[in-house]
Each structure stands twice: as C-alpha cells, then as structure tokens.
C-alpha cells in the first residue's frame, strides 16, 4: 500500500540529462504516438466546445455521471490494488467477484421490492442489500484465494494468472448456469427518482446515493488500513512478507483478510452498479473489471488513494470523452467508442507513467 512504495527509491540517474541519447527508436515511436493522441484529444475538445452543442448544465451532468460511475470503478479498483499490494499479482477474476455479488443480490432486491419494503425503509434496505452483496462477494473472493491462488503462491507468474483467467470463466458461467442467461433489471426505487438540487446544480438521487455510499466505504477502508491492527498487518505484509512473518504477523490470515475486504468492496460496488445501471447479467463483470483495473493502474497500482482517484478520473474521462473530444473530431455515434477510450487510456498510462498518478513503484519492474 502506499507506505510500501517508499521502500524502493527510484535510482537517481545521472543520465536524466541526456534522455535523448538513451531513447531507442521504440521510445520515439511511442512518444510520437502518444503526442498524436494527445493532439487529437486537444483538437477534438476545442472543436466540440466551439461548436457549443451542449450547454453548461449538460457538461455538469456528464461530469457528475462520470463521478458516480467512477466511484463504482474505484470500489472495484480497491480490490485489485489491495491484492496487488500484497501478492504482486493481478486478481483477474475480481470483476466476476463483483458480478456475483450484484447478480445474486438482485433476487433479494426484487423480493424486497415486491413486498414494498424498499420504498418504505430506503436506507435500511440499501444497507441490507449492500451487506448481503458484500458478504456473497467476500465469500467468493475468499474461496477463490483458498482454492485457486494459495496453492500456487510462489509459482511462476504465468501460472496464477492462467488460474485466474480460468476462475474468471468458471464464475461467469456458473452465474449463468445458476441464474439463467437473461438480463435482469433491478427494481425501480420510487424515493430515488428525480433530482436533488444543490443550488443551481441538480443531481439524480441515485447518483447522490452512489457517490455518498462510495465515499463512506472508502473512508472506512482508509481508516481501517491506517488505524486498525489488522490494517497495520496488511501494510506490513505488503512491505515485506518475510519480515512481517518474523514480527509475528500471520501472513496467511492477512492475505485472506485482504481478499475478503477486496471482495466485500466489490460486492458493495455491485449494489451501487445495480442502483445506477439497473441491468445485471452474467457478463457485467468483464468490462467494469478491466476498467477498474485501468483505474488501479492509473492511480498507481498498490496505492489505496491512487485507486480511488484513478477510478474517479477514469469515470469522468469516459463520461465526458465521447461528447467532448470524439464528437469534435467528427466521429459518428461516438458513444460506441466509449470503451475504446478506457482501453486507450490504459495503454497510454502504461507507456508514459507506468507508476500511475500517485504510485512510485515501477510497473515494468514488478510486473
């Protein structure tokens, strides 16, 4: 986690001056490509703003929608980052952990809604749903660690990665087999319809709920990791497993707790996703999973505030992107390319700042 990053200082290279000499043709190629993309973004944005198709209020809506979906990404990204911080591995199946929570809790939400419980006890039912979803995802994450990852700890890097891909498909198709392959819609919650006004700015109520819940959860996590004894153990294990074990930290238990926390956050994110987008099916884990990974990398993988920041950044970028710089470039139905923006961003970050916004760890060294 973030304290772990301070351990290895970047080598102070005297060669920083003559970067041009050290650059190979591949670097030049990448810089050209990156520069070209940035140029496209700038030109597109300017042209969109000049064209004035959207009003200021619409831009604000885009940004707020971006923050709301970004906070969902952040919550999932925390799971990637926590696990990466400790095990130096990417839990490829984390998106599916998120999906299982959201998908399973749909049935509870539906049952509660049929009895009118949600509309009468809004806060209580949201807390209940979040707890159930978090619990299910937590269980899946812990089982995943126990069955698929723990026996392979210390194996070559490719091995747990392949297991993770396998586990990811297993979970997807298990959910499909158990719950059916159709789309399910979360119930419409009456008290959450319409907008809340903060001065002149109106925000959809669901988005308020999503943002507020995400902030609470992230604050709770941050305090937990910084203040509690277990949190301290987690940081110690992230820093140095052997030293932590010598100091009396139960490494295995700490790793399980890390997976559990990551899973729980993903489950909570699942409920927020359900509130916001309403549609769930067995494949919803895939794209948010990759995007949350992007967010984690963007913020600096292994870094907790980084994952939060990265998620928000990615969410806003993705929600603004199509209207801001793609339409300005004259691209028809720019919304189709929303996901391309996220993937391109991932590539760009890994090229230009593999350490992410807040991270100091060199991705290429560890990865």
């Amino acid at each position, binding site marked *: 986690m973030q304290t772990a990053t301070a351990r290895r200082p970047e080598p102070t290279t005297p060669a920083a001056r003559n970067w041009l000499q050290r650059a190979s043709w591949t670097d030049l190629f990448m810089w050209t490509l990156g520069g070209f993309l940035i140029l496209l973004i700038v030109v597109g944005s300017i042209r969109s703003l000049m064209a004035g198709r959207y009003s200021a209020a619409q831009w604000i809506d885009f940004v707020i929608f971006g923050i709301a979906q970004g906070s969902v990404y952040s919550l999932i990204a925390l799971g990637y980052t926590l696990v990466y911080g400790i095990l130096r591995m990417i839990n490829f199946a984390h998106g599916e952990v998120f999906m299982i929570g959201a998908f399973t809790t749909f049935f509870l939400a539906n049952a509660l809604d049929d009895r009118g419980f949600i509309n009468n006890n809004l806060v209580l039912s949201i807390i209940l749903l979040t707890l159930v979803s978090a619990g299910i995802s937590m269980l899946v994450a812990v089982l995943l660690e126990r069955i698929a990852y723990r026996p392979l700890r210390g194996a070559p890097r490719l091995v747990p990665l392949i297991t993770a891909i396998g586990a990811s498909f297993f979970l*997807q198709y298990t959910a499909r087999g158990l719950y059916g392959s159709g789309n399910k819609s979360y119930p419409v919650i009456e008290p959450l319809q319409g907008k809340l006004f903060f001065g002149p700015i109106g925000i959809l109520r669901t988005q308020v709920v999503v943002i507020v819940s995400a902030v609470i959860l992230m604050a709770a996590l941050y305090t937990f990791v910084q203040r509690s004894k277990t949190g301290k153990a987690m940081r110690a294990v992230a820093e140095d497993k052997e030293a932590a074990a010598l100091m009396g930290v139960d490494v295995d238990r700490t790793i399980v707790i890390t997976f559990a926390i990551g899973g729980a956050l993903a489950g909570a994110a699942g409920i927020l996703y359900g509130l916001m987008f309403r549609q769930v099916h067995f494949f919803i884990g895939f794209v948010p999973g990759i995007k949350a990974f992007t967010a984690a990398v963007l913020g600096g993988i292994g870094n907790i505030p980084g994952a939060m920041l990265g998620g928000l950044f990615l969410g806003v970028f993705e929600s603004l992107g199509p209207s801001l710089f793609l339409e300005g470039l004259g691209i028809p139905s720019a919304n189709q390319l929303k996901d391309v923006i996220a993937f391109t961003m991932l590539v760009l970050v890994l090229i230009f700042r593999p350490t992410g916004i807040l991270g100091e760890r060199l991705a290429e060294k560890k990865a």
Partner: protein
Amino acid sequence: MATGIAMNQRWARRETPPTRRAIQLGLSGGVMALLVCLIGLVNAFSKRFIINDVLTTAQAILAIIVLITGYMAAARTWKRGQPAATAIVYGALAGLMVGVVLAALVLIGSAVNLREVLVNATPALYGILTFEQESQGVGLGMLLLATGVLGLLGALLFILPDRMRNAVLMGFGVLIFVGLLQDLIELVLNRNRGVQRFFYTSNGLTVTGALLLFILPFLLRLGWGYVGDRVRSNVEALPPASRRGLSWAMTGLGILFLLLFPRIFGSFPSEVMNNVALLGVLMGLGLNIVVGFAGLLDLGYVGFFAIGAYTMAVLTSPQLNFPIDMGFWQALPFAILISIFCGMLLGIPVLKMRGDYLAIVTLGFGEIIRLLALSDLMRPRLGGAQGVTQVATANFAGTELTTPQTLYYLLLASVALTWFISRRLRDSRIGRAWMALREDEDVAEAMGINLVSTKLMAFGTGAAMAGLGGAIFAAKLQSIAPQSFDLLISINALAIIIIGGLASIPGVVVGALLLIGVPELLREFNEYRLWVYGIMMVVMMLFRPEGFWPEEHRRRELHDTEPGIEDSATVGMDPAAAPGQS
C-alpha cells in the same frame, strides 16, 4: 519463506483426524456435484444415454465426481502399512457425504420453490437425483446407497495395483468415449448394419456392447501392462535403421489416414475437423509461439484473427466500395502481411511490459479492434455491425473449395505448413532466444539477446498464423461479422495450449481435438464449454501444469530424479516449478 508456509500447511493437514478429513473432502465433492446439478449440466445430459436404459450421461458425470471424491479421500487418509479396509471405509464415507449434500438439495427443493432464483432447480432435476422413484424416501435411499458404493469403488480404485487401475480406467474410458460419440460412430458404421445393431440402440449402447467395450480394452491394457515394457525395450533394441524405418512407417500411415479422412468419414466429420484445424490448431500453434515459446501472455490474439479475416473480406468482397477486388489467393498474402505488420505494431507498446500487464493491455487491444470493427466510424470501410458478405471462396485448380471435404485439404495444408514452421522455429536460433526470454528476460538480455527484435518476431509470427486462420475463416464462411471476433476465441486458443502443454506442438493438436472437437460432437455440451474450460485451466495449473502432452524436454525434466538438474531447470515460467506437484 514460501516454503515455510507450505510446510506449515502440510503439518496442519497431517494433524486433521482422518474421519474429519474424509467428511471435509466428501462435502467439497458434494458442493461440486451440487454445482453441476444447479448450473443445468445434469438436466441437459439426462436424455442422452451412454448405455441404453442403464446409464445416462448425467448419471455418469455425477458418478465420476463421487468416484474422484472417494479416490481422493482414500489417498488423503490412507497411510502405508494400514489395512486397505480403512481406506475403503473413508472412501465410502466421503462418497456418502456427496449423497447427503444432494439429498439435502432434493429435500429443500421439494419444500421451498428454489426456481425463482436458481433456474435449474426443477422437479425434473430432483427426479433424476432420486432415480425417478415414486416415493421420495426410496429415491433418496437409493441416492445415498449409490453415492456410498461409488465412494467405496473410488477408494478401491486407489487400493488396486497400478496395472489393474490403468486397465479399469482404460475400459471405462473407451466405454464412455464410444457411448458419447454414438452419432459420429454410427455415421461411420452405416455401411455395416450388423455391427451397428450389436453395439447401439437408438439412444446409447446396448448392454452387451457396453460389456464388450469395457472388457476388451480392459484385457488389452492389462496385457500391455505385463508385456508393454518388454515390447518397448525390444523396439529400442532394434538397429537404428529399422527403428527409423518403423517411425517413418507410422508417420506415413498417419499422413495417409489424414489424407483419406474426408473420403472415409464424409461431410459432417470433415466439418468438425475443419473447425478443429482452424479455430484450434492454427490459432493454437500461433499463440503457442507467443505464449508457449516466448512466454508473452497475449490475450488479444483474436485481434489478428480479425485483421486477417477483415483484410480478406475487404480485398475480395464487391460489397464494400473498396477499389480493388481480388481473388482468394491474391488476397491471402496481404492478409498475412497486414497481420504481421499489426502484430509488430501492437507489440511495440508492450515491449517493456511483463506478465499481468501484458495480458491486460493485449486484451484491451483485442477489444479495441473489435469495437472499431463494430463502430459506425468504420462502417464505410468495414461494414459495421452487419459485417461483410460475398467474400471470395478459396479455389484450387479450378474448383471452388466450398464443401467441407474440399476445404479440409486447404486447412490440412495450412496446418502442415504452420506445424513445419513452428518446429523449425523452435529448433532455430530465434526459437532458443524465445525460450531464453521465457525463462528469464534479464538474463536473456545479458546474454546478448536483442529483446526488441526477439519479442517483435514472436508477436509477428504469432500474428501471421492468426492472420492466415482469419483469412481462411472469412473464405470458409464467405461472410464475416464483428461479433464473431470476441475474447472467447483468444481464450479458446489459450485453453488449448494449456491443456495440451505449453510450448508443445503435438500438445496443440491434442488440446484442439479435446476442446474444439469434443464440444462440436456433443451439442448439449456447447453451453457449458466455457465453464468446463475454466475448471480445466484451474485444475491443470494446480495438478498437471505441464499439460497432457508436455514438451519433450519438460517431460524429461519432470521425470528426472537427479536432484542437481531439477534445481537449475525449474526457473522462469516453467510450469514444472509449480508447487501443485508437492
């Protein structure tokens, strides 16, 4: 320190009392069986008999789970010197636990309607689990009895001497194989009604046929267990010239069989073989170069398949307003060259990335390619969501290769070519550079290997094979749609090379036959294909990381008992180093 933890676990495992251990294993087996029931596999396979009126495929699947549970329970609790009976008791106990879990499902399911949530928890499922008995009590009793007995048999399998066990497994293997592939085998047997009547009913094997199919392989395998070593040593004692002659003769027979395949088997099996060759072997061999040889985990491999297919489509279809219309053979080199170019181009950004990052970024590339093909932005060029039709078919010597039987030869030739290239590359200088890169990038660089060109070569070669596959794919279907180029094709190819054995060229063929061929033949299975792939990938990595047909030197490494060699040989991504073995 990793070994320290592993040792702790081993201690903990030894201390668990065997009864608890057996119950735990039984419950895990029960959860597995429960999952198989609830995701619908049992329902889907309940109509297909392996042995007519005796054994359905669904029952066989559940039985195998119980057998494995019993076997594991015996293996985990039995210690040398104990009487065999204890192991059998624990096996039966573990098997019984599976039955208890399933019985609980039936009882709960009959009391509460689970169908609202779990779509497959149907009365039909409970009927299957209770052997379609009128009274539920009798049915549940039969279920418990059956699982207990099967657990016991599983334990018995563990107790049996190796020779016997192999023979029994061989017998069951052949029985199930022949029973499952009824449609295909009947197609072949059509000329010989008598044999067909003897073995098959309209649904599943006859009882006598099943007995024969079990006993014959059983006896053969048992006999081979006694004389196999002698035969092998006799063959090895032959003079080199005649040994070479023998192996040439075998190869010749194999080639002859492959050449005559469409003649013997006809249209449908040829079509299956075409899919195996195209989606399995071609893609697998290409990805094998990137992942197996060079150790670069590329999940966006489908992108190059798409590029090959789209190049072929754009260059040959008159539907798009592209100025040039070519034939198949003129467009093919372009498809391959453009794939190589894109492979190298997309390789540049990921040169410095390793492992996980590489996997996710390449996955992103694959998705970008698919999304671009789908988008309205590229619609005038690539046809958008509708795709492209009227793609030129391949032709050879004046005949259009449109039927499966004729396309078969095109694919056979492509597979032979890629096989040859793979083999030559593996043994070449660049192949050794790839392997060095796979084992340790830093050391490889220190040894003077140019990382940039070596990696780009791997990406380029892999992309070339995928491009060839894509081009043939487009010509085979005569149309393409962006929907067919999703991540699953990459995952298919990855699963194939993992099942077959990373870096093993014959392994690719084995993996392709298993993962593409078998699902093509078992239509019910298609829906659960990816579920099974997922399990297989996890299980393979845990228990048999070298694959079913491991690469030669890796096999030698794994069975080498000299300690000094093993230490130095198991570095890098060599799956032999996985601790699942211990």
